[in-house]
């Protein structure tokens, strides 16, 4: 089985993000970058499938020059080779990312395309579904369990209100939720090995993708801050505040 999997570079998920004073973006000084947590789950799933039944795992990142570092993490987790499409986030929306990935899908012809369900920077949760529609493929989004039998995939999906199971025929698009697996930490030997794995660099010009955006973020601001609260010392004091001040009980 051949699997294509995403490896997006994102700001550290636990970093406190601040907006630039002029509203043109976020303050990047001192920020660390990581592999998108949901992509880690997707990569782990891809590598586990490969360990079970062989085949090839191709990891792809779309991002600035530094995104190759995060692609290397995917290679250190076990992906066989990488594709780096050079395009900074600021020039991208979900739709453009999807159209780039559609081109790569057509080039690579994988049996399965695994993506993270969302990226923790843009939080859009669109790309997998867009790709599936553009390619007229079945999708299984928010996957928390995945089983392959022949050319069919059985997927548990985490939904509001319960757990759904669907079956999709291959090729298919699957987006990973956090409970799909526990992503492995790359070992040092694998990190070193990853440095020698092939990475193909591409541009959207070379891929023949139109750079036009469908949705453009034109300003960034900090959300209104909650005004600071108080600490109470006892349950009685808390009750008094909830009943008499907040009138919440």
């Amino acid at each position, binding site marked *: 089985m051949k699997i294509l999997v995403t490896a997006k570079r994102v700001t550290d*998920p*636990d970093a*406190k*993000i*601040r*907006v630039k004073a002029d509203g043109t973006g*976020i303050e990047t000084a001192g920020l660390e970058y990581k592999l998108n947590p949901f992509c880690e789950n997707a990569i782990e799933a891809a590598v586990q499938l490969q360990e079970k039944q062989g085949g090839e795992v191709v990891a792809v990142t779309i991002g600035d020059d530094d995104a190759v570092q995060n692609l290397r993490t995917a290679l250190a987790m076990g992906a066989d080779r990488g594709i780096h499409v050079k395009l900074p986030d600021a020039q991208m929306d*979900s739709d453009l990312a999807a159209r780039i990935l559609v081109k790569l899908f057509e080039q690579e012809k994988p049996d399965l395309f695994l993506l993270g*369900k969302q990226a923790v*920077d*843009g*939080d859009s949760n*669109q*790309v*997998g*579904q*867009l790709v*599936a*529609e553009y390619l007229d*493929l*079945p*999708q*299984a989004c*928010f996957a928390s369990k995945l089983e392959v039998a022949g050319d069919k995939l059985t997927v548990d999906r*985490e*939904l*509001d*209100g*319960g*757990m*759904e*199971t*669907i*079956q999709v*025929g291959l090729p*298919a698009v699957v987006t990973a939720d*956090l409970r799909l697996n526990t992503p492995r930490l790359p070992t040092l030997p694998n990190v070193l090995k990853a440095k020698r794995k092939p990475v193909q660099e591409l541009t959207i010009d070379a891929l023949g993708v139109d750079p*036009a*955006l*469908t*949705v453009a973020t*034109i*300003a*960034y*601001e*900090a*959300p209104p801050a*909650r005004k*600071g*609260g*108080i*600490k109470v010392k*006892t*349950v009685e004091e*808390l*009750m008094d505040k*909830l009943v008499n001040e*907040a009138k*919440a*009980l």
Partner: protein
Amino acid sequence: MKNILVIAETFQGKIRKTSLPAVTFAAELAGKVGGEFSIALFGSGVAGLAGELTGFGAKNVYVVDAPGFANYLGGPWAKAVVALAQQAGATAVAAVSDTFSRDLLPRVAARMGAGMVSETTAIVGDGAGVKFQRPMWAGNVLGTVEVRTPTAVFGVRGTDFDPPKATGGASAVQNASIAFADDGKATYVKFEPTVSARPDLAEAAVVISGGRGLKDAAGFALLNPLADMLKAAIGATRAVVDAGICPNDLQVGQTGRVVAPQLYFAVGLSGAIQHVAGMKNSKVIVAINKDEEAPIFSVADYGLVGDAFKILPELTDAIRKHKGL
């Protein structure tokens, strides 16, 4: 985006109330761009529910009722929604952001050639220059976006738009004949609902969430008597769900449910940004944590530093007395 089609969702044979703030969004957008909106209902055996949607000022309530729509599948449903949008002359499609619409709407957008705004929290400006706001980076950033395509798709944050108001008028109910185009590429197998006698997280006026500080299922169960008395929904952090103590759909946060109740109790949870993203718009927040430095205190209106195992029984007692139970 002058003609907006709102997708109303059904769940287990009923209209999902939490899907209706999208109607409020559509009415506001229609007002600002000088347009109109309609509501669509898809499903099997749902025609009888249409009457619940006719009082909100929609031009039409479209019903697509066929056995094929008994269960959701992304591909065929996206085809059906776009077919209805074309029949209805709709240039925009909107639905409240939940796992149903997050799965469906991007496919609809791709099929319509429309730009999609996820988790829309506000409409800014009006006319041709109308723009939209949405949270990014787990709600630490508010982005203003413009849609550059003639058609548009909107995921709507349910907590940022009110439930729709009754307008007095009656929308025309239209039965749309749209076939379920099964391509055989995906099949529904089963759905295991989370069984609970408590209100849904997104609908409850009071939410009580517990975190890793409650240790195990027995500790987490200390929230039950409090929730019973306050008719509250119970929520959890990812840590608790990952530990198998709670079903996944009780996870509140960036990647779970987004709630904004009148009163939110955060018990034994640290207040990680991913959790806070799902509850910081609650009206009143109470935090109980033994660590006075826990980040949750910076968003709480009332913080109580101490051991939850000692405080919870006391609080339960105090509320019981207050309620005269």
